[in-house]
């Protein structure tokens, strides 16, 4: 996927597939996934649980246990395929050039080390400086992410911080070496809505100040709408739709994206009835044939359970994996979904 973007390409994922070998069989966690991230972009990856949105990024970080995971395809970081790197080479990229923030700030920090020490450790992992210098850098970073009274707080343990503050610490940790790519995996799901607003704003400020590319993984379309420049919608380990955020929210093409938009309650108005997606997501041990969404799709027709739909290329870098003819989609969008949502 390479269309109009602002900065240089940072990350290019090509035809990525991830398979877990388990006792029950092979889980097809990610299949034929491709996307590009440029400097200055925020790519929102949206999907429900089991959509493969986290797994694909753990692959980028080299954090999947290769002893029971098979990964095929390429993940090019500034031209190098990180999947082919040896452990030690990957370690030198991890936390330095590509950094990651996780969902649960309560579990992501070591409970027995001082917050400052955990940050200093991140400094020392890639930089040969004195312990004092590393500690001072840790304090600076805590200040930068908005921890009041940072020098004193650096000596505290994680359990003495609130959830929002811990997530700030995680962000500080990710920023230690001015990474090129920042991956945020559901960074606000465990947080309250007012704290979520603080953290999202912080991530956006970090992106501008550190001039990096951000991948924001979330199940919340609202979060994506507010933060992302590009959106990738995943379902059952596969890409369903990709495009500039503007395109997706004003002219979504894929019935699954429609389903997500329709089923989401909104604070803007009270809907007489929500339109859910019937059924539940498929098992990744035995994914359905053809389009993985077809068993739940209201608009399915003959070709849907046959050949797997490819990604069709639309104007403005919009990609879409659905067999419905474009005219029919435009009609459905303007007459039903768009109208329902109050967008045209």
């Amino acid at each position, binding site marked *: 996927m390479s269309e109009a973007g602002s900065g240089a390409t940072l990350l290019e994922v090509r035809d990525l597939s991830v398979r877990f070998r388990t006792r029950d069989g092979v889980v097809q966690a990610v299949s034929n996934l491709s996307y590009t991230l440029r400097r200055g972009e925020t790519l929102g990856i949206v999907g429900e649980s089991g959509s493969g949105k986290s797994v694909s990024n753990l692959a980028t*970080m080299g*954090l999947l246990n290769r002893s029971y995971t098979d990964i095929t395809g390429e993940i090019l970081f500034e031209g190098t395929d990180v999947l082919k790197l040896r*452990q030690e080479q990957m*370690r*030198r*990229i*991890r*936390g*330095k050039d590509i*950094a*990651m923030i*996780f969902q*649960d700030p309560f*579990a*992501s*920090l*070591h*409970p*027995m*080390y001082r917050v400052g020490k955990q940050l200093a*450790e*991140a400094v020392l*992992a*890639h930089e040969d400086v004195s312990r004092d210098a590393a500690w001072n850098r840790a304090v600076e970073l805590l200040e930068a992410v908005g921890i009041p009274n940072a020098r004193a707080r650096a000596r505290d*343990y994680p*359990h*003495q911080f609130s959830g929002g503050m811990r997530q700030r610490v*995680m962000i500080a*940790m990710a920023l*230690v070496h001015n990474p090129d790519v920042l991956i945020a995996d559901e960074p606000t799901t465990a947080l309250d809505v007012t704290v979520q607003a603080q953290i999202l704003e912080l991530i956006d400020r970090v992106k501008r100040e550190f001039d990096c590319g951000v991948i924001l993984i979330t199940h919340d379309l609202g979060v994506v709408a507010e933060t992302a420049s590009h959106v990738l919608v995943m379902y059952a380990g596969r890409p369903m739709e990709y495009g500039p955020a503007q395109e997706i929210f004003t002219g979504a093409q894929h019935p699954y994206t429609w389903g997500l938009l329709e089923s989401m309650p909104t604070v803007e108005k009270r809907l007489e009835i929500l339109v859910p997606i019937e059924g539940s997501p498929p098992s990744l041990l035995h994914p359905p044939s053809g389009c993985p969404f077809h068993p739940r799709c209201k608009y399915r027709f003959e070709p849907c359970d046959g050949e797997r739909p490819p990604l069709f290329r639309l104007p403005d870098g919009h990609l879409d994996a659905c067999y419905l003819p474009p005219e029919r989609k435009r009609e459905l969008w303007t007459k039903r979904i768009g109208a329902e949502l109050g967008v045209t």
Partner: protein
Amino acid sequence: MLIYIARRLVWTLVVIFVVVLITFVVFFKLPAGDPALRFAGRSPTTAELALIRHRLHLDKPFYTEFGYFVKNFFTGDSNGWPGLGYSYEGDIPVLQEIEQRAPRTLFLIAGAGIIWLIFGVAIGVTSAVKRRSIVDRVAMGFALFGISAPVFWLGLMSLFIFWKELHWTGGSGYVPLTQNPAAFFSHLILPWIVLALLFMAVYARLTRGNLLETLGEDYIRTARAKGLSERAVIFRHGLRASLTPIATIFPLDLAQLVGGAVITETVFNLQGLGWLAVNSVFTQDLPTVLGVVLLGAVCVALANLVADILYAFLDPRVRYA
């Protein structure tokens, strides 16, 4: 932290008091018959019984009797501190008997403890890191053996092989360290290993389990995501969290062996405290049994205190709670 320690200390004293109370009731009040007769040993004279009744205050009301019992225990009697009474069977103060036996048991426990802690943890860590490999399987097989092999059999087999057949070690019995250091070690090495084996197996399995669990935690993923080396991830982040529970059961395991290493002490004829207790049961020397039981219980209570303090020291979440 100081308040925490003070609180635990007070609590420990309460526990010790309760232990003394229960022991008192079990030894003096629960069994039917004349306590004096039981405490007197095998063939007492009437004069002896009268003396015992007087010394143990059996002729006074229950609370006075208990009061003296507690007072003696905490402040000492004519034989020194803590007051544990007089063994009529051995014709010697119980305290003196225990003082004589204690070093044997303490040296046995200390040596075994060091061995099982070091090797148990090392085996556990290796096993966890090389999970599902041959090393892991062999180590866990060994652990299963250690847990299931009976100590008396292990003891006798090791004596037979290393002493009788190979002449590598000293035989059974105890040689004081001050008398002959070489013989001291040579006689203790087998009991150390035999006693350590069971605990080593338990600690290896515990370490492996804890470490595997810790390595699945989110903060371990964070440590990897920082770009730390696998070594730092496992030893600095993984072990730190998974050894805390082990550090806190260690003192308890040591303490319960004070009067509990009976089989090892018997098989190797070390004649330590556990042996003393069992031997006294057979010779109906109740004052000595009482003394060892009290001492053992107090050790466990104190070890509990040490474990609690250690835990607070190791885990900031407890310290700052």
